[in-house]
């Protein structure tokens, strides 16, 4: 520990305060990072194989892609990366602020509460208990728990900050502050929902509003959970590991403020060419492009801090991982603005290019940084030597090669499929009218990606083994080291520095300013949609869902259909030819939650209503390959066994009514009978095609009711014309 050696502290030697660090909690978070890391990557590999071959869905509801994919993303982001952030933040703030964490009890509640959330997620998501909002799928009781634990983390952090013995706060702390404040705002606003039962709720936002709030959240979850905390960690662990000063203090200031201010605006780039009002799309794209330089500011400061130590980067695993992590950060933050350009996005959106882009961030940046940080922290905190440098190098190469296989295969798959979708020949017809042709074409790339994933997982397991061997070699030591330094009161604010230097001595003011910085963009983009009814022009043709369709829609949500199917026909020639009329904002006003999706592993479904017969859907859900040879879709046999829960309908309608869907009391009172009648109508047609009448109360009937309704209110799917 470098003790305070400023003249003041020498003068006040007699007043030195003693303190120790809570490294036990850091150790707990490290263990959790390792365990959940294996789980998250194993889930990733599993779903990668499920896309290579549908057989890996094993015909079990809780193992299908639609339910495991949300578990993979949640486990990777919140369990693996989350625990790593907490370990790194708790380790570094104690040392940067020269104080012990504020409360051992709060730290314990934070740790065990977070692990409880993860376990609850791991149980509920495979059971199909989900809100279907990406990276926010957890249902309302768990949402509340997440918010509470995050606030506890926040209290623990800010009180530690208050009790610091270092006057000025270092750039790493700035990023931690932005993280804690923004994640709290994002999570609470996006998860506002009204419960129907203990494990079911409806979003307070509908359709376009829901989409906008969700992707403001989704994009900024990437920004403030996967990026800003890691920039903070980078600013601590890179200079520590290389033993060199940070490259540029003024670059830190400029890129910090510009990054958090600009990032929050960029969310709508997930919704380009959708029914979102165009001015919001334009803002989203413009700010995404402007985000390039602020992002690269972090990369420059990271890489140039390593300047003059490149020979060591070649030799030392810690530096290897950190340097590679920062490099991939630079790559991903260049690709991001590129993908936000409308025309590029038009090609790439809904394809695997986006999936590859996300993983160059999560694997290239987060995984690599976590590995570097763990290789730094574990030997230090357990006071021992790393078990094997060879194994660490093995991990580095498997992870790097696996990741390159991942990224390149997804580029090829994404661009190939995107070009096939839009190919129109000189007679004005789609060159690949059968969607499945474009899927079959890229399946080889899915195998490459899956094996890349296996390599990444293998490397991680090598690290887990390596670190546990390292920990085993440590001596058991119960006593904490005691340090001493001058109290905060003995350290005046640096009066020679500029105004930002003064601000660094005032963490509360700093935090308020950071909050304002993220508030501006959020308010300007979200408020018009939430406050104004004029934002979405209503259309009288659009009617609320029938009781049976509500049940079917909830099944659609439960099965995670949105993980493979979009419901958004974009204003593009090929989409009109393939799917029908472009989707309009007015069509989604009763959609709680929205189901626009983010990836088309299967075709868009917004205009699927009426396109096929009931029997087609019946056959298709039972065995997709029966009607679409080559399809990757899992079988959904359980929908033909479980019964429709008619009893839940009135409560659902009451909640929807409270949220603004115009159901009358009569409609709610008669909802069960109405649903049964609609089921019988569908059943009558199926019976003509030879289906047994005892299927009439099975979930498949409700799902068919929903699918046949989709996009029909304003559809006119028979005409190929431009909108208006």
């Amino acid at each position: 520990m470098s003790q305070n050696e400023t003249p003041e502290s020498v003068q006040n030697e007699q007043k030195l305060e003693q303190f120790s660090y809570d490294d036990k909690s850091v150790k707990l978070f490290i263990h959790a990072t390792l365990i959940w890391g294996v789980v998250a990557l194993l889930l990733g590999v599993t779903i990668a194989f499920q896309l290579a071959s549908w057989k890996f869905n094993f015909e079990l509801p809780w193992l299908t892609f639609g339910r495991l994919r949300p578990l993979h993303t949640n486990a990777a982001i919140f369990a693996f990366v989350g625990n790593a952030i907490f370990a790194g933040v708790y380790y570094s703030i104690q040392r940067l602020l020269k104080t012990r964490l504020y409360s051992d009890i709060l730290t314990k509640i934070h740790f065990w509460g977070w692990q409880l959330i993860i376990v609850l997620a791991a149980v509920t998501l495979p059971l199909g208990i989900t809100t279907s909002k990406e990276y926010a799928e957890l249902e309302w009781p768990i949402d509340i728990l997440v918010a509470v634990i995050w606030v506890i983390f926040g209290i623990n952090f800010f009180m530690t900050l208050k009790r610091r013995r270092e006057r000025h706060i270092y750039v790493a702390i700035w990023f931690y502050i932005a993280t804690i404040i923004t994640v709290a705002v994002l999570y609470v606003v996006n998860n506002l929902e009204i419960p129907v039962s203990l494990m079911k709720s409806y979003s307070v936002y509908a359709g376009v509003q829901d989409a906008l709030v969700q992707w403001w959240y989704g994009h900024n979850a990437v920004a403030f959970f996967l990026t800003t905390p890691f920039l903070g960690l980078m600013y601590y662990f890179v200079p520590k590991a290389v033993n060199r000063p940070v490259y540029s203090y003024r670059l830190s200031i400029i890129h910090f403020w510009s990054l958090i201010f600009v990032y929050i605006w960029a969310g709508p780039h997930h919704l380009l060419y959708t029914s979102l009002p165009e001015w919001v799309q334009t803002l989203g794209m413009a700010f995404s492009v402007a985000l390039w330089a602020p992002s690269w500011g972090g990369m420059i400061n990271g890489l140039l801090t390593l300047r003059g130590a490149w020979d060591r980067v070649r030799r030392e695993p810690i530096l290897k991982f950190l340097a590679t992590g920062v490099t991939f950060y630079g790559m991903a933050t260049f690709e991001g603005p590129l993908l936000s350009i409308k025309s590029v996005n038009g090609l790439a959106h809904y394809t695997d290019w986006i999936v590859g882009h996300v993983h160059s961030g999560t694997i290239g940046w987060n995984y690599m940084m976590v590995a570097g940080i763990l290789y730094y922290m574990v030997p230090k905190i357990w006071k021992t030597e790393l078990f094997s440098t060879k194994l660490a190098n093995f991990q580095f190469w498997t992870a790097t090669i696996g990741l390159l296989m991942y990224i390149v295969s997804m580029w090829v798959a994404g661009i190939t499929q995107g070009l096939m979708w839009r190919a129109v020949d000189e007679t004005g017809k789609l060159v690949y009218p059968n969607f499945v042709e474009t899927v079959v074409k890229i399946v080889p790339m899915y195998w490459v990606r899956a094996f890349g994933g296996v390599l990444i997982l293998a490397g991680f397991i090598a690290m887990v083994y390596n670190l546990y061997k390292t920990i085993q070699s440590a001596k058991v030591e119960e006593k904490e080291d005691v340090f001493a330094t001058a109290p905060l009161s003995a350290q005046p604010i640096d009066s020679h520095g500029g105004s930002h230097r003064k601000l660094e001595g005032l963490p509360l003011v700093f935090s308020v300013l950071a909050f304002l910085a993220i508030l501006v963009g959020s308010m300007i983009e979200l408020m018009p949609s939430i406050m104004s009814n004029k934002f979405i022009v209503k259309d009288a043709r659009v009617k609320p869902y029938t009781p049976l369709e509500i049940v079917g829609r909830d099944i659609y949500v439960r099965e995670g259909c949105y993980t493979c199917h979009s419901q958004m026909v974009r204003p593009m020639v090929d989409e009109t030819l393939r799917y029908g009329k472009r989707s309009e904002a007015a069509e989604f006003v009763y959609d709680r939650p929205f189901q626009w999706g983010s990836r088309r592993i299967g075709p868009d479904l917004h205009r699927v209503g009426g396109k096929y017969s009931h029997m087609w859907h019946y056959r298709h859900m039972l065995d997709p390959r029966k009607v679409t040879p080559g399809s990757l879709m899992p079988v959904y046999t359980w929908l033909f066994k479980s019964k429709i829960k008619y009893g839940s309908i009135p409560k659902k309608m009451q909640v929807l009514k409270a949220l603004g869907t115009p159901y009358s009391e009569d409609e709610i009172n008669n909802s069960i009978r109405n649903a049964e009648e609609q089921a019988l109508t569908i059943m009558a047609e199926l019976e003509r095609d030879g289906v047994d009448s005892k299927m009439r109360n099975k979930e498949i009937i409700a799902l068919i009711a929903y699918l046949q309704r989709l996009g029909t209110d304003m559809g006119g799917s028979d005409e190929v014309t431009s909108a208006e």
Partner: protein
Amino acid sequence: MSNENKSKNIIMNEEEQSLLLNHDYDGIEEFDYPLPSWWVGTFIGGVVFAAFYILYYSFAGGPSLQDEYNHKMAEVNKVREEQSKLVGKFQPDQYQAWIVNKDADEKALEVYEENCLSCHEEKGKGDIGPNLTDKYWKNLKKADAEEIYQFIIVGNEDAGMPAWGDVLSKEELFAAVKYVISIKNTNVPGKEAEGEVIE
């Protein structure tokens, strides 16, 4: 652990020494290198681009995505209308000439398998769609090539039969017609008869 960080950070030269700030956090020091000029250029470029982009598309009447779409759609619709005039009219002599070419049988089967099989099943025995091998027809008044051709083009969307004229080329339509005629009255056991007897 207490002493290792006492060692000063590695400073390479005098220039660096002069840029070192009086900051020390757990042994981490900071230089104050000036911002790289190319980075500043990128930063300003990004902001200026964003400003002009927003001005042009949101305030100065730049074309909206909807405008661009309408424009492209109009072009394609023109092409499609011309095509549908060409394709929509059944020309018996062209059809007769096409079905005698040596690849016709192969092409007929290929088009059927790629497009029709999923509903009408192998050999046309029917499943989701009607049995095509009996003498009953649901949607046709006459079972000749022209009638079949015209029906395949428009389909019957209420019954789940797509309008294949949007998807298939003239030759592919010929192929489908040829296949349907070739299985007519083969009476493959399958889906029960629907519609009326059409000879």
